[in-house]
């Protein structure tokens, strides 16, 4: 087996006095896409935030490696530059900052941390146009302040656009399918599938088996009460769809 892009070992995290992640173990080899499903409040978004470096959480145990490098000691922007991307469940509004401006600032900030020069304006324009077109994002949306007044579906598409432009090696998508209409789901799935490659891994958090018909996972994990309690192939998602989470609520085997 190739080295995993993301490796999480016995990760415990708490917020204030409450432990939310209770020993997560997960390894995603390069090129694989893993899906995570689980009840509301089981800690899926918390896992994604902890991986991305949100301040609010205290890590009490465990370690995380990104391409073999310790992730937990890095600042959030360093993690981003190292290739970690999180498509937010609830994307944040940045008033007054045009989406284009934001995209370029982000791309250049990452290039700079990696010691690369700035992207040239023609290259940037070309990349944005291409990626935008495949996600049905038009020029007028790119001129609007990021996420301000965007519909739920537009926000999610803008997240995938950022992901496409930043070309991360580890993508975490937190409920990117929620709030999408049927057509948008197709478009976004196509966008995500286009980014799948041998060098890139993905972790897709979702509540809906339906998404996994479009974005076919290599592995499906069931998340319950702060840890992964079951892993299997994509048929596990179908099983969940039919029977719910009840079977996985008890203590892990």
């Amino acid at each position, binding site marked *: 087996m190739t080295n995993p892009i993301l490796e999480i070992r016995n990760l415990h995290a708490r917020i204030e006095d409450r432990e939310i992640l209770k020993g997560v173990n997960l390894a995603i080899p390069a090129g694989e896409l893993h899906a995570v499903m689980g009840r509301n409040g089981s800690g899926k978004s918390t896992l994604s935030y902890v991986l991305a470096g949100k301040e609010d959480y205290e890590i009490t145990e465990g370690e995380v490696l990104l391409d073999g490098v310790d992730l937990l000691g890095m600042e959030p922007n360093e993690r981003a530059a190292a290739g970690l991307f999180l498509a937010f469940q609830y994307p944040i509004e940045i008033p007054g900052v045009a989406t284009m401006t934001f995209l370029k*600032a982000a791309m250049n900030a990452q290039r700079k941390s990696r010691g690369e020069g700035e992207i040239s304006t023609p290259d940037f324009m070309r990349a944005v146009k291409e990626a935008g077109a495949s996600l049905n994002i038009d020029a007028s949306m*790119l001129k609007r302040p990021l996420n301000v007044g965007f519909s739920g579906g537009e926000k999610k598409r803008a997240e995938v656009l950022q992901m496409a432009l930043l070309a991360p090696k580890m993508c975490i998508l937190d409920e990117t399918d929620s709030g999408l209409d049927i057509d948008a789901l197709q478009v976004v799935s196509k966008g995500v599938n286009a980014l799948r490659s041998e060098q890139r891994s993905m972790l897709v958090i979702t509540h809906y088996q339906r998404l996994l018909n479009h974005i076919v996972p290599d592995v499906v994990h069931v998340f319950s009460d702060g840890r992964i309690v079951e892993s299997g192939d994509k048929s596990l998602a179908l099983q969940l769809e039919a029977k719910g989470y009840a079977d996985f609520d008890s203590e892990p085997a």
Partner: protein
Amino acid sequence: MMSALDIPTLKENIDRETVDQVLSLDVDKYKYGFSTDIESDMAPQGLSEDIVRFISAKKNEPQWMLDWRLDAYRRWLTMDEPAWAKVHYPQLDFQDMYFYAAPKSTPAPTSLDEVDPELLAMYDKLGIPLKEREILAGVERPNVAVDAVMDSVSVVTTFREELAKVGIIFCSISEAIREHAELVQKYLGSVVPVTDNYYATLNSAVFTDGSFVYIPKGVRCPMELSTYFRINEKKTGQFERTLIIAEDDSYVSYLEGCTAPMRDESQLHAAVVELVALENAEIKYSTVQNWYPGDKDGKGGIYNFVTKRGDCRGNGSKISWTQVETGSAITWKYPSCILRGDNSRGEFYSIAISNGYQQVDSGTKMIHLGKNTSSKIIAKGIAAGFSDNTYRGQVSAHAKAKGARNFTQCDSLLIGDKCGAHTVPYIESRNATAVFEHEATTSKISDDQMFYCQQRGLNEEEAVALIVNGFVRDVLQHLPMEFMVESQKLIAISLEGSVG
């Protein structure tokens, strides 16, 4: 080839530069904090009638000007410093200051070739486009004419001949007093009366230089006019005086930039700017103020006590003030419009940033006297560090100001929890048909916004600079392009060290 997507490109680059600028500087470093070694010619220390006479004599002024100054000085002696602004500073000792300092270079330069190369090098460091010759040689299209004022003296005015062809006068106020006495006598003190306020009266007595602009009837000034002020000499006060007159149906856009070197002691800057817009004339006045704000413990810095006022004297006159205030230890400044002519319009767009121990008390006054006059105020205050940032604005309608309208929007952004933002609006209406609207918001940069930006690769300072530039966007858009670039950089620089 050009598509709609290409349009924001310039701004993209600017944002990038903003961020680079932040990264390339140390937190405590004030970019313009170098002082230039130029021999200078100074007045004796302190303030007295003799000093007023000394200044007037140095400038070869006519008797009427000296009399005007002396009258102002005597009135000033009877006045008290105002105490109503929300700013605190030690008692100013006027006897410890120098009221006149001129860079020594004799005789007065008539072209760039005669200017002290040290001085040119300094302006170069400041990025002032003084390179008239290159531009005139056809390398670049001229779009900015510059008058540079260091300490007390106007050093060089570029593009004068070019402007003279269309009848525009752009020169130092000292020269105007000698060469265009009738205009100066007619308008000087007609917008800001000698007795207007303590600092304006002081300025009237001791003002040393500044710019004079006259746009004849029907002329649209073909380029931006610009003055760059700099306080170089230790312990000098800078008291510049600017007078801009736009005759009927004319237009001018004027830019003012300010810097000062780092000094431990605080220095006083008390300018007066008077604008006169006659019938259907329009004056656009933009300022980027970046005087030294003091060090990170609040030591030193410029006290910026300025009186700026515009008079819309005719039917359909328009005056628009745009300011980016990032520097000074204390800013006390209310660029105002007197909307005297019917259908006249006043605008005020402001970005005021305070960090460290800076104190800002700024805003505007819109005085509606004529019928169907309108005004618009958009003020963005950003407070960080231990600073205090107050917007103080007055909108009033006279009994005859039928149909007066004002729209005011004040937004404050707080960075950290040791700073303060305050909004103090005064609204007075003596006419029942006047419609005044006022909106105010206060917000903080949220942790979620910071985290989101960081997740995309921006570090904390880059994230703050980006978010703040977004917050001030609708004001930045009113600045001429040259100043927009400069301002975005300044915003980033002035917020250094505000996070973490």
